[in-house]
């Protein structure tokens, strides 16, 4: 579904240039749950921005279903984003002037769906994610976990096929984190949504089917979960992190 080929990304200002990504390549298959792990500064948010077409790469190709996104026009990209991509960020996910229901419905109304469809689908998705009670509340009135669930709802309500999550549990406490990760897993399992999550937290990463380790803009290791249980996988991830000399983040 997604092929990343030798992408590089440079950031520059007046006085210095940083190489954020250094020839990163990997593939993501349909329905896969992939996590990209790395410390802050390892380039993972940059990678996510490039994949979601918010930012452009300096070199290399990104292919979505075989089509090179660099060749698309601005309008085509906007269309692509609202039809096929769903986003969950760590902060500033929701528009604070809209209610929860409207926030979820926003994704659909951007696709010019009619009001009836919007309402039905929003209600459907809200039920699946267990946020039906807060539909008429405003974001500042609900908890962090509920906000993230709203964001997840928004990310799939329009039938988007790829969910991009950037540190979704970053601002949540452990219970809410667990909930959210369970929900994401369910989305991946039951609704066959492809999930690409970026995190520095090994616990979140253990929910994935495959983990890529990013350091200094380069992929230096890859772990496959296979049939193993989550806690076994979690320990293996910790081992890889330790082998790095512990200078990759703070766990949990």
């Amino acid at each position, binding site marked *: 579904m997604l092929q990343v080929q030798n992408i590089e990304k440079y950031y520059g200002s007046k006085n210095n240039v940083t190489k954020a990504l250094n020839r990163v390549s990997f593939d993501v298959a349909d329905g896969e749950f992939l996590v990209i792990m790395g410390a802050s500064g390892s380039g993972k948010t940059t990678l996510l921005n490039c994949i979601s077409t918010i930012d452009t790469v300096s070199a290399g190709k990104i292919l979505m279903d075989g089509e090179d996104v660099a060749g698309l026009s*601005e309008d085509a990209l906007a269309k692509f*984003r609202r039809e096929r991509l769903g986003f969950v960020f760590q902060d500033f996910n929701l*528009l604070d002037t*809209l209610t929860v229901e409207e926030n979820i419905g*926003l*994704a*659909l*109304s951007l696709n010019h769906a009619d*009001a009836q469809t919007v309402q039905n689908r929003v209600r459907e998705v809200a039920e699946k994610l267990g946020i039906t009670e807060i539909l008429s509340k405003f974001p500042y009135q609900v908890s962090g976990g509920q906000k993230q669930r709203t964001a997840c709802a928004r990310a799939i309500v329009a039938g988007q096929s790829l969910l991009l999550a950037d540190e979704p549990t970053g601002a949540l406490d452990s219970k809410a984190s667990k909930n959210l990760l369970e929900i994401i897993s369910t989305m991946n399992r039951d609704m066959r949504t492809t999930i690409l999550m970026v995190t520095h937290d090994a616990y979140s990463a253990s929910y994935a089917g495959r983990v890529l380790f990013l350091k200094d803009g380069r992929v230096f290791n890859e772990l496959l979960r296979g049939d193993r249980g989550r806690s076994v996988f979690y320990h293996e991830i910790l081992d890889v992190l330790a082998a790095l000399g512990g200078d990759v983040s703070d766990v949990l």
Partner: protein
Amino acid sequence: MTYFKLSMRNAGRQARDYLVYFVTMVLAAALIFAFNALAVSGEVLALTEILENFSLIIVLASVAVVCVFGWLAAYSTRFMLSRRSRELGIYLLSGLTGRQVARLFFLENLAVGAVALVLGAGLGGLLYQVMRAIVMAMFAQPYRFALEFSLAALGRTALCFALIYLFALGRSRRHIRRMKIYDLIYFERQNEGAILQKGKTRRLVFGMSLVLGAVGTCLLMRKSLYIAPAGAFCAILALFGFFLSFASGVPAFFERRPARKYRGQTLLVFRGLTAKLASMGVLMAVLSIVFTATLISEGSSSVLYGIMKGRTAEATCFDLYIGIEGETPDPGPYLTYIGKNIPVEQERPYPVYLTGKTQVQDHLGKMYYNYSCDSDPVLCWSDYAALRAIAGYPAVEPPGPGQFPIHSMTYLEEALRDYQGTILVGETALTPGGIYTEHLSQSYGTANGRGYILVVPDQAAEGLPVHHIAYAAKTARPVTTAQYEAVADLARAERDRQEDPSGYVFVLSKAYEETEVAAQAVVGCFPLYYLALALMMTAVTILTIRQLSETEHYRSQFALLRKLGMDRREMARTLGRQFALYYTLPTVPAVLIAGSFIVHLAMMPEPGVMVGWNSPAVIVMISLGAFFLIYAIYILLAYISLKRNVLASAR
């Protein structure tokens, strides 16, 4: 880093961040300077005596303007303070005392004000030249370009500015001194705190305010002078209610109509507007009232000018006109004086007769209340033709046998066209034949009939009773004020001489009328425009400052929308709509209230004055047009700047 250096740096930054406010203060200085320069200009005051009061009126207007701009400065300064509270907190943390911080802020604003004053004075000088040219043209005087700079005006402007800034800073100084570090660092953005708390109350108030607004508008539309204020009162009440309850009323409306909500950009626009209005309900209402005041000021000025122009348009078709009433009207003394002192190209003394009957008058009386002469006034044809020549109108065909053309003011044309009846003039029976409506001095009893006059063949006019003797002339050069005064003195002397001064001698001079109108326009209309401009600039600047200070918030909002896949075009459209609604909302009540006020005002003078270019409809159009033109410029500039900063750049 001395205070001075820090203040200067902050001043530069303030000018850049709040450019709209800075530009408005420059324009304010320009405005105050230009009008005051006009008021102290010796050249202008020498034009006519009537302008002696001009200086005083401008001073009064300046006082009002200083209050208005003072409010703007106070509001903006307080707003800037609240946005920079974190920075001030850091100053306090670094060890500066409250007094020192206040002094810093004071110096900074002083610097900005001084620069605004200097720039404004320069611009004002240019503006003054423009206005001087216009005034000279109004008085038909030649305009000589001279690069003069009035120090007196500069002094006055500096004084005004000092008052404005001292007022604004005085309030903020107290505010700063009392601030505690904790409050500053954790200061939440200031909002008014909803006055109406309960959602239900709000919705009720919203509905009621809409109803009240409709009622008020209807009342305002009625052409009665007594009901209109009641309507205005309802409208103002409705205004406050509307803006205060907007934040709850509108969402309630949309809740029941989800289909409307999700169409296009409606969702984002209305939610954005609601959020904004939740914190500035009272301010919006106040601004609406300010706009109303602006439009009323501007409209009254236009109406005033229209009335003056309308009245004199009728009266100024002849260079010199004298109407002599009385038992034995005698044009002799006047003719002697004129013969000696006033070079004349064409002249004609002639009698204005009466039919003794009120046939046409009765016909008109059904539609117009017309305190005319006792009966229909009459002119004989040869006199009429001569009058046309004197006034410079093209000659017309003499009437056919047995026909009488009517010459009337435009507003009577419709009614008179219907008149078919035959009238009896003396012995002759005549039928109506043709109407002419050029200006022929028909607004006074001792002129060419009041509103209309019948033109009959010379023979038919013989023997008719004479109402008054008239004299019309076209002079070689415009009649000077001295000459006019001399003739008027003659008239007064003549009247005093009579035992029973029943007669009324009436002297009209085109040049004098025009001078009077110009003077009255300058004295009456200019100050009103001055005030209107000040009010408008203040209101728009406050609106724009609030809008532009939300740039960061907009930017993050549109960044999110871009990530969710919104089209660039749609984003521009959303922003545009939000903008349009935000700026249009306060003007709607203003237009309604002020519009009806202007229309009423314009309908007050006697009929026949407000016609053509002066008709109420046209005046309202022009007033609204001028207002929205300046408004649109501000809005456009704000929109362009916001759009550039907020919408993410294309790839």
